[in-house]
């Protein structure tokens, strides 16, 4: 009984601490634009908008298990939707957001259908092709997109009543959208859709047997994911005020994927870390080596993957795990009390049937795992 109270107490304490930290983080996020220089506020704004795109990609790659090398294209589609609306129809910034989101959602649905038939690499290639194909297409549609010169549009201006500087206003606008999007992503994952997605990722046929409507969920995952990327693109147009086809080459798509993996797949806050990585590390690389920033940047990517194969988000867990293992080794004989399944009768035996933890649930999963040191495998379908 006392343990339960203690547990409850510690649970409450933990919740309290978490709520406090959350409040602190919110306060920090809100206070940041007043503390930092405008240039740094701009950098933070960029981190947030990349995080939106990465969160979208995470839905697909991290939770859906499908690889997309073409999210830069959805990003571009969102950015161009906003830019064209501002340039030709003078709609005002706010109106561009739902249109870009809806447009990319539909585009994602369109891609989601063929994506059903494709797996792994094949899907990666088809999406990559889309990313490669989009810039020349944008150039071709010169009358609308401004061709290779791109479009310069107005940035988001603060209204007079706010009393904020341009950077601060943009930061808050992007922060608001990011917060909504990240919450949406979180709820999406906790909803039936999300659980279905996870089930599909972990075991497709089993999920199907369970009655998950596979095709629907996979297609929807693509659509949501594209929508997030489109929203990020729209924010990009608000913040940068300039779009051109060559801003959205396939390099962007690969950068996004790299950012996601570096940040941490299937983690809710991995996208934030990944976005910070793609935003800050290139400049850091230049500070290290002016002659060849790429050398440093490439090495840093590899180094992070060595240190944290599951991404930066997984790093604390890995460290904790390593520490725990060390602790376990130190106290091998310490046993968890478990329900003894052996009968009271102690038949003639050479070994002693002592009480032991019931490890049954742990084993099947572990047995499925590849043995130590086995190379990673792709699905060979």
């Amino acid at each position, binding site marked *: 009984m006392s343990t339960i109270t203690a547990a409850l107490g510690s649970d409450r304490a933990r919740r309290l601490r978490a709520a406090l930290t959350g409040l602190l983080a919110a306060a920090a996020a809100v206070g940041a634009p007043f503390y930092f220089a405008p240039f740094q506020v701009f950098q933070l704004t960029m981190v947030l908008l990349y995080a939106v795109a990465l969160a979208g990609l995470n839905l697909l790659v991290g939770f859906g298990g499908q690889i997309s090398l073409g999210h830069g294209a959805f990003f571009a589609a969102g950015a161009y939707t906003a830019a064209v609306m501002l340039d030709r129809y003078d709609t005002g910034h706010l109106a561009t957001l739902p249109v870009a989101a809806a447009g990319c959602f539909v585009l994602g649905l369109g891609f989601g259908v063929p994506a059903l038939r494709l797996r792994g690499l094949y899907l990666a290639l088809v999406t990559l092709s889309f990313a490669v194909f989009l810039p020349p297409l944008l150039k071709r549609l010169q009358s609308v997109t401004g061709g290779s010169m791109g479009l310069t549009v107005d940035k988001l201006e603060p209204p007079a009543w706010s009393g904020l500087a341009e950077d601060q206003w943009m930061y808050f606008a992007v922060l608001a959208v990011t917060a909504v999007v990240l919450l949406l992503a979180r709820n999406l994952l906790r909803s039936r859709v999300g659980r279905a997605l996870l089930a599909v990722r972990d075991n497709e046929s089993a999920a199907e047997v369970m009655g998950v409507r596979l095709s629907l969920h996979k297609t929807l995952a693509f659509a949501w994911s594209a929508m997030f990327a489109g929203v990020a693109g729209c924010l990009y147009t608000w913040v940068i005020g300039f779009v051109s086809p060559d801003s959205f080459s396939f390099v962007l798509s690969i950068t996004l994927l790299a950012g996601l993996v570096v940040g941490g797949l299937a983690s809710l806050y991995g996208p934030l870390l990944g976005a910070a990585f793609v935003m800050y590390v290139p400049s850091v690389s230049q500070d290290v080596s002016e002659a060849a920033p790429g050398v440093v940047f490439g090495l840093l990517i590899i180094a992070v993957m060595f240190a944290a194969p599951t991404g930066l988000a997984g790093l604390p867990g890995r460290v904790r*795990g390593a520490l*725990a*293992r060390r602790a*376990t080794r130190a106290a*091998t004989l310490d046993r968890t009390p478990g329900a003894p*399944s*052996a*009968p009271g*009768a102690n*038949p*003639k*035996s*050479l*070994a*002693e*049937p*002592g009480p*032991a*933890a*019931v*490890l*049954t*649930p*742990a*084993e*099947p999963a*572990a*047995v499925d*795992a590849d*043995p*130590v*040191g086995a190379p990673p495998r792709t699905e060979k379908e």
Partner: protein
Amino acid sequence: MSEPTTDRTEATPGAEPDFLTVRGLHAGYGQARVLQGLDFRVARGEVCAILGPNGAGKTTTLRALCGMVRGRGSVTLNGTELLGRSPEQTARIGVAHVPEGRGTFNDLTVEENLRVGAHLRTGPRRRGRAERAAVAADLERIHDYFPRLRQRSRQAAGSLSGGEQQMLAIGRALMLRPSLLLLDEPSLGLAPLVTRELFEIIRAVNEEEGTTVVVVEQNAQLALGIAHRAHVLEAGRLVLSGPAAQIREDGQVAEVYLGVSVRSRKAG
């Protein structure tokens, strides 16, 4: 129900009682500790059955022996320590492990599968005519044990039936000319008739080749039928050890530890 029930306990070829010695074996996956300290011995030429319910640690025991999972304690084969070695190293010492789920090379043909088994002898540095002849002879021998493999020699392993794949997996393991053969659930997913055929062959191999066999089985009755000795595992510990016949005869013990399979035997 006719079964291969000669009592082999007395027939234990116990020239070297300490061929395989397991002492204080602990093993697990990550933070999950599965084996909590095992001690047992297997004599040369003996068939040893490891029995127990699901999750007792049977598979883990075999994996620790062959190096697929890391273990602590001591496992010696003919005086050589096995722990701390990788699977490829234990294979080179003479341990052949037929994993659960068979682990055949499905894209390769049946004959290629068997040749991979002989790879250690046909490696880059040993390509003499004598070796090639020896491999051919071994192939012939395996084909004699498993005539069905001969017929399917050019077929892809992936196209075989479950029983044939299991035979192929054992055949490939034998191509290593192992001194210790580890079999993990050979009956899994096979029809009863096929299973019986398979166990007959395992017994034949043991008798003719003198290969020491450690077999893990859910189907206790079958395993006890060919084993000399048996160990019963529960929750990572040995709860019962003894000559196979004795364990088979002890109905109560069997029922408690081995569950359904024994009851079904009684029912049958």
